[in-house]
Structures are given as structure tokens and as C-alpha cells.
């Protein structure tokens, strides 16, 4: 097995992920590009497991499993943020997200409707 083949595959996939994150406007597509980058790192880890003799056997594959779990958590929170953004602004274009706090104008109703703090869950 020649390890340079999967290594080059992983490098190209990582470059594609960087390109996608910088190029895409739609937040869901940005998340897909992030998945490409995470998978490139996973491929590097699994390949390194065969080429590098580590003290503990199969460390690279264990790391790859950990990265997969991290990616699952990341995609859950990321999609919650994207859906909240869509609910607030009816658009998921990442270059239209305001980076500053909006002015104090649209919130007179808050003070009226926000009652005393009851349970947080309900």
C-alpha cells in the first residue's frame, strides 16, 4: 500500500473544503464544506495509523472516531444556529449577517411581555 495516495486525496479534499467555506454564501453549504475538511482530517488520521508506529496500537483510528463524534455535535449545534438565523432574518446568506447589535428600536414589547422569571424550561 502506498500511503501517498490517501494522503494526497486528503490534502485535496481539505483544499476543497477551505475553498467551499470561503466561497459559499448559503450557511448550509458552508457547513457541508466544513464536513469535507473534517473528513480530510479523518483520512489523514486513519492513514497515519498505518504508516506511523505509535506506542498504543490503533491510536489514529480511535482519534478518527472521536473526530466523527465531534462532527456530529458540531453539526447539531450549527444547524440549530442556522435555523435560528433563518427564523430571525428569513435568509441564510452568511454575508448578510449583521455583526453588530441592532439598535434599541424594535423592542418595546419585550419589557411588557417578559414576566417574572419562572421556570426556564416552560
Amino acid at each position, binding site marked *: *500500500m502506498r*500511503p*501517498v*495516495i*490517501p494522503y*494526497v486525496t486528503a*490534502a*485535496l*479534499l481539505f*483544499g*476543497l*473544503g*477551505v*475553498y467551499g467555506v*470561503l*466561497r*459559499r*454564501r448559503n450557511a*448550509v453549504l458552508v457547513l*457541508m*464544506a466544513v*464536513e*469535507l475538511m473534517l473528513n480530510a482530517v*479523518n*483520512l489523514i488520521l*486513519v492513514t497515519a495509523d*498505518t*504508516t506511523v508506529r505509535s506506542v*498504543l*496500537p490503533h491510536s489514529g*483510528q*480511535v482519534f*478518527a*472516531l*472521536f473526530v*466523527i463524534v465531534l*462532527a*456530529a*455535535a458540531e453539526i*447539531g*449545534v450549527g*444547524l*440549530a444556529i*442556522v*435555523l*435560528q438565523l*433563518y427564523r430571525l432574518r428569513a435568509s*441564510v*446568506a452568511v454575508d448578510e449577517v449583521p455583526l453588530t447589535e*441592532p439598535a434599541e428600536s*424594535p*423592542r418595546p*414589547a*419585550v419589557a411588557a*411581555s*417578559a*414576566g417574572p*422569571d419562572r*421556570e426556564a424550561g*416552560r
Partner: protein
Amino acid sequence: MTGADLLLIALGAVAVGSGVLVVTTKHLVRAGLYLVVCLGALAGDYLVLGAELVAWVQVLIYVGAVVVLLLFAVMLTRAPIGASDDLDRPGWPAALIGGGAGLGLTVLLVDAYRWSTVALAEAGTAERLGEQIFRSWVLPFEVLSVLLLSALVGAVVLSRPDIGRPAPAADRTAAPGGVDVETGGRR
């Protein structure tokens, strides 16, 4: 060139090709489906490299769960059916940085490994990996479980409109399925 090399080349070509389509296609839903092809080819790569458990977990979690979540998000954000023109920014910097990162890493790794060969190690079956995880990597494993729990709670808090989001609370409480005004203010 052995059979494993040929398989790696073919699967790598499929993965990179569908990856190109993921970042360039004009159809939102097709991007998700190309991502399935890409992740499936990578699972095949893992199998050839002897990482059995990682390959099956990849199929289960990535192809099964993550892509389905992404497609749900595509539909929940009312993505248009068919091609849409406003998906991209004009991107010379993106092509420059992405291409630079990809080609730079390629040159680095090709220079490091040349055309050397390596004997495949013993396959990473569930038994061997489980022994490693629960013997040497127990603490990271437990920390990961806590992280998953906190991510779950975070996602729930983020997606409930009546928790912690002060901005337009008036129309929020009037939304269908919303809570009544007395209990539904900010936290």
C-alpha cells in the same frame, strides 16, 4: 501497484470529484447528495486501509445522520428547487486560499512520503478498537459523552424560541405553537 493501490486511487478520485461538485454545484439538494457520494467513497478508503469500525461508523453517522440533518436544514430554510444563482460570492480569494492550502499540503505530503510502500497493519476491528478505547482512552471518551450532552442541550436551547432570546418577543409569543404570554417571556 497492487490491488489496494488501484482501489485507493479509484476511491480517492471519486471522493475528490464529488467534493468538487459539492463546492461548485448550483443545486442545494444536489450538493447534499454529492456529499453522500464523497463520504461513501471515503468509507471505502477506510475499509481498504483496514479501519473497519471507522468505516462502518462513518456510514452510520455521516452518511446516515449528518447528511440527513443537512438535507433537513436545506428544506427547512425553504431552499428553492432547481438551480439558484445566489449561492456563491465572487471568489478569487477563496480559490487562491483553498488552492494554496490544498496544493501546499499535497506538495508537503508527496515530498514526505514519495512513492514508498507500507505494509498494511492488522485491521481495526470493533474488538481491538474497543479494547483501546476502554483501556487507554477512557477519559477522552467520557469527556466526549459530556460534550455530546452539552451540545444536545445547546441545540435545544438555541432552537426553542421562548428561551433566552429577547429580540422580537411580541410576535414570537403570537406564533402558532408558541407559549402564552405569562410564562413565555425571556428566561
